[in-house]
């Protein structure tokens, strides 16, 4: 029995998970789809588990609607990340997710899993020294850590254009995307603020198959993607100098309409607003960071368009090698 579930959202969430940021220049950071290595460190590994619960969606007018009665839709992702310092100002990273889909409808259920889309990153640090300060003694103490980078999404996941028998198998979006990223981060202990801006462009591709069925070939391109995430946090030092950091975030994500054989495809444009909270525990020397993140998409009309409304709980751990 063929089950059909184009979990575009599921795919999209892999790519769209709002960045969870905190004092990047001091502790490193990033999210499930990007990694930021702290200054003066050699490499970092990161493992994070995302638990995503779907709670309705915004329609094409931006109105909120519930999921079908009797449905319980979830996705789980285990993200493996590695970042490596190439030089004093350059670093590279890779993030590979493995995805589990759990879909329960009133009339059917499905549980599938597979590799997701891989992200490759290259980042330039436009600063040399640590930008976390305790006091502002000079205007230079206000200068944030600035990161400029590129990220390439490689479609290693299972997309609607693959040889899939069951469309509940979808774990990826099927397109290459190149993002230009800018991250500004400033810590004046105990306070921290960050701003991430990202602009991404998808590569147009040929399509000759949809959910395992060959079709008349056509060209498809997804619309340009824009992401902005602002965060504000507070760090509490424990007696042993380990730290607890609490951060609040707001993200806005949108994609323009894509195209099919050059014609605008308005069904593909989307928008999503979400708020988040992060609690991070870091050892004194910042070698180990344990993080709990909650991202909540706002289930109200006007807070999104053409996209599922989800809550994402992430549990992760990073280890930095000096």
């Amino acid at each position, binding site marked *: 029995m063929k089950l059909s579930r184009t979990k575009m959202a599921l795919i999209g969430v892999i790519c769209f998970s709002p960045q969870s940021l905190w004092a990047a220049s001091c502790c490193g950071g990033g999210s499930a789809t990007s990694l930021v290595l702290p200054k003066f460190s050699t490499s970092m590994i990161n493992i994070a588990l995302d638990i995503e619960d779907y709670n309705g969606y915004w329609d*094409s007018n931006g109105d909120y*609607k519930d999921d079908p009665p009797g449905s319980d839709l979830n996705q789980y992702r285990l993200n493996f990340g590695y970042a490596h310092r190439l030089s004093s100002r350059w670093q590279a990273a890779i993030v590979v997710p493995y995805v589990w889909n759990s879909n329960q409808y009133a009339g059917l259920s499905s549980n599938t899993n597979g590799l997701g889309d891989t992200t490759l990153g290259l980042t330039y640090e436009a600063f040399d020294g640590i930008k976390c300060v305790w006091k502002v003694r000079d205007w230079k103490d206000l200068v944030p850590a600035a990161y400029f980078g590129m990220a390439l999404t490689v479609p290693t996941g299972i997309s609607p*254009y693959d040889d899939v028998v069951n469309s509940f198998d979808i774990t990826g979006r*099927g397109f290459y995307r190149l993002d230009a990223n800018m991250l500004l981060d400033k810590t004046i202990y105990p306070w921290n603020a960050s701003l991430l801006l990202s602009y991404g462009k998808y590569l147009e591709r040929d399509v000759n198959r949809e959910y395992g069925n060959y079709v008349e070939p056509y060209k498809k391109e997804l619309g340009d993607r824009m992401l902005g995430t602002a965060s504000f946090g507070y760090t509490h030092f424990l007696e042993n100098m380990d730290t607890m950091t609490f951060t609040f975030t707001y993200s806005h994500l949108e994609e323009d309409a894509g195209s099919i054989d050059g014609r605008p495809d308005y069904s593909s444009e989307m928008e999503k607003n979400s708020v988040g909270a992060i609690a991070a525990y870091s050892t004194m020397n910042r070698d180990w960071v344990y993080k709990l993140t909650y991202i909540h998409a706002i289930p109200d009309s006007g807070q999104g368009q053409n996209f599922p409304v989800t809550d994402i709980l992430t549990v992760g751990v990073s280890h930095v090698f000096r």
Partner: protein
Amino acid sequence: MLSACDGMTDDMLPSGTDERPEVDTSIMGTQVGQQSPDFAMFDTLGNSRGLYAELDVPHDGVVLYFNMWCPICDSHASHMRANVIPLFPDVSFFLVDYVSGTISVSRDAQLANGYGDIETLVDTGQVVFDMYGASMGTTVVIGNDRVVRMNEDYKDGVKLTETLQALP
């Protein structure tokens, strides 16, 4: 891990080659050019609706949109309602709900999603869904001669409009 790599290159190296198999139009089937077999489903008002019975009523054809009440489904159905349905008053349009399982649940979903004005059929057990090899968004057009004219994703509605314009 190896099984997870199966087909990975399909998206990394996409193909634009036409790989559609030859369709034997002399036999009944659900591919374009074949005469569709009959089927029956209940609509969300509890009425049994058969394909051949629908086609026996004098009009141009039947459109089936396979729907699971998701964002893309809504986008497609909304576009179809605004841009396609008004152009073809002599065609019967149906949403086919293959996830709700029962008439009452499907009716609730239909109304909650704002599609009380488009007839919705309840494909309990995904029988018709499997028959047409459908997925979410698959749009099937069957002419009044019972021949399948379209069986592919809705995309932007252009192919559906062209197909309906070409109905005999």
